[in-house]
Structure formats: structure tokens, C-alpha cells
């Protein structure tokens, strides 16, 4: 959609750029696989705790792989740092929110 601007401004056909593009495709696909696994886990696992386990583990790792894969596609240290910041923020909120959901689920289970 957005034309790739990164890879050090290397022109199309540059072997280094092809290599970096292949790396990006591989890492992003690998990350997407983890998202798929997490979604399957969300649908198939029996209760809230195992579903959370599937979601958080898979999403954190999946996003990490996608961020790592996108890194050679952006220009400049600032854009890199923004990508890493996004990953860290999602890690943080995912970890915190899954704790809160698990706690709410445990409270509900004890009441029943």
C-alpha cells in the first residue's frame, strides 16, 4: 500500500535490498503465524485462563516478529524507536490487561 521507503534508499534490484525484503516477508509471515495460533487458541481453549495464555503469548511474540521484520523497511533511528515503542506499549498493556481479566475471571469462578 505505502511504497517501501526504507532499506537505506537502495534501488529496486539491489541484491542487499532483495535480501532485506525476503527477511521482512519471512519475519512478518512468521509473526502472522503466531497471531493465527493465538486466534485458534482463543477459539479452541476451554476457559478464560488458557485463552488468555494463548492470546498474550502468541500476540506478544507475533508482534515482536512483525516489528523486527519491519525494521529494515523504515528509515532512520527515530522510526525504529517508534516501532520498538509500539511493541513495548502493546507488551505492557497486554500483560497488565490479561492479569486484570484473569483476576476478574477468578473472582467470578469463586462466586459460583
Amino acid at each position, binding site marked *: 500500500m505505502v511504497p517501501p521507503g526504507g532499506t537505506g534508499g537502495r534501488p529496486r534490484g539491489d541484491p542487499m535490498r532483495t535480501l532485506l525484503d525476503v527477511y521482512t516477508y519471512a519475519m512478518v509471515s512468521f509473526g502472522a503465524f503466531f497471531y493465527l495460533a493465538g486466534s485458534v487458541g482463543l477459539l479452541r481453549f476451554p476457559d478464560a485462563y488458557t485463552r488468555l495464555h494463548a492470546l498474550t503469548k502468541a500476540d506478544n511474540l507475533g508482534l515482536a516478529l512483525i516489528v523486527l521484520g519491519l525494521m529494515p523497511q523504515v528509515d532512520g533511528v527515530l522510526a525504529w524507536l517508534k516501532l520498538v515503542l509500539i511493541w513495548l506499549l502493546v507488551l505492557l498493556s497486554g500483560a497488565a490487561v490479561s492479569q*486484570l481479566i484473569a483476576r476478574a475471571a477468578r473472582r467470578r469462578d469463586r462466586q459460583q
Partner: protein
Amino acid sequence: MSVVVSSAAVLLLLGLALWTVVAREAFLAISGFVAYGLLLSLVWVRLYGVDVALTEAAIGGGLTGALLIGAASRLRDTEAAAWSERSGPGLRAVAKLLSLAVAVVLGLCVLALPEPAPTLADEVVARMPATGVGNPITGVLLAFRALDTLLEAIVLVIALIGVWSFAPDRVWGGRPGLRHRSDPDGILAYFARLLPPVGLIIGVYIFWAGADHPGGKFQGATILAAMWTLVLMAGLADTPAIGRRWLRIGIVVGPLVFIAIGFVGVAVAGAFLAYPDGWAKPMIVLIEAALMPTLVLILGLLLAGPPSRRGGP
């Protein structure tokens, strides 16, 4: 490939919209609605409407979703009773027919739009340099159609007054919502200490970047209001009593500055909200900076709800 992704997104959107309408429980419908908002913002990104995408994610999915969850939790006790008194089959059939008719008329209108659609985009782009801002969306919102933005800000103030008007007389001027308490060493308190400094910087950055890039006061203010709400929910701070003077001033400062600048335009440039030559950028920045506290306070207080307990002067 992009056709496949677009079609998948459209099918998902339609499915989620259907789910939101037919879901039996309010909470299920709302989770569908929030997912719908997030997916819609992704679609806006694909349509190169990054500003709209940010607003949809922040206001459409995020803030509205949070407001609806609050409403659903208040309605939970009476929801089953409300379902049991269903209206008669005749009335339901009429309602279905009317909804269908509205959908058909809307669809026909969209199909009847001229192709290519009439646009003012070229004129906006031609006149952008006069505004001194680089993001055409900001130019439209605060220069070419500033009146709309002014009225929008006033509508928000009125909405907040509307929420406050639900308060019983004895707690008028008191603190909104419940006093949240959570384990001071728990994960929520930890999260509410760790995230707001980051969120503060991101919110102000998005506000500031709005002059030349996607972003702006609305999106930035939503992030700041979310940080405030997080601190409130973790019990690290209490909501301010709505009778406080600084709070009242903060709520009206944005629209008042906006209107004042409008009248400056009458005196100097000959029309309401007209900016004198060369002063457009500073005036736009002034308006946005004045709207920022107003928006943060209003969005946060809309979530907090009407005053419910006495407290503070």
C-alpha cells in the same frame, strides 16, 4: 492481493455490524461495536484517511465503546426484564420494514452520487499555504470550516451539562462516579503509574504533530483523557468535584478562546473567524491549545458520569 484484503475487510465489517445488531446481550453487542470501530479505522488507513482512522479508533471505538460499557453495566440488572416485555409482532414488523426502507433509500442515494464526486480538495490544496499548516485536514477543520469545529466544541460542553443534569440535587457540585479503590501494590495501580507519563508525551506529540501530519487536538485529547481515566480507575486520584472553579473554567476556556478569536476576525479581517494575513498559524495553534484542556476534561468527565457523591467545595 489488495482486492482480497479489501473484500475480507468489508465482509468482516458487515459481519460485525450484523453481530452488533442481532446480539442478544448489550455487552456482546458492545464488544462487537468496539471491534467494528477498530476494523473501520483499519479500513480508513487503507483509504489513506489516517486522520479519520485515528479519530475513529480514539472516539468511535475507544471512547464511545467505554461509554457504552458503562451504560451496559448500569442496565445489567434490568436487561432481562426489558427483554421479557417485547413489543408485539405487528410493531416489530413495522420497525423492520422502516429500518429496511431507510437502508434502501440510503443505498440508492449513495449509488446515485455523481461520479467523480464533487470535491473542493483542489481549492483546499491551492489555498493551504495561506493557513501556514501542512496537514490539509487541520487546515479544513480550523481555517476553512472553523465554524463547524467551534460548534462541535460547544456541543461537547452541552453534552457534559446534559450528563451532569442527571445528578440528584443533594449531590450537585459533588464528585462524579464511584471512588475507585484497588490494591495499591496491584497490577492496575502499577499500570496506572507506569503508563501515564508515556501517554502524556504521546498525547501531546499527536496534538502537536497535527499541524503537519495526521493527528490533532481531538486524538491527542482522547489519549490524555484515557490516561486520566486510568489513574481514576486505579484509585490513585479521585474525580474533582464538578463545582470547582478551575474545572468550570477549563471546560469553557476552549470555546471562549475560539469565539474571542472569531470576533478578532470580525474586527481585523472583516469576517467572523477570518484570520488576518500571516496570523493564521499562530491563531490556529492558540485555538488548539485552548481546546486541549477543554477536550481532555470533557472526555474524561463524560466517562466519569454525573456527580454522585458529596465532596470538596
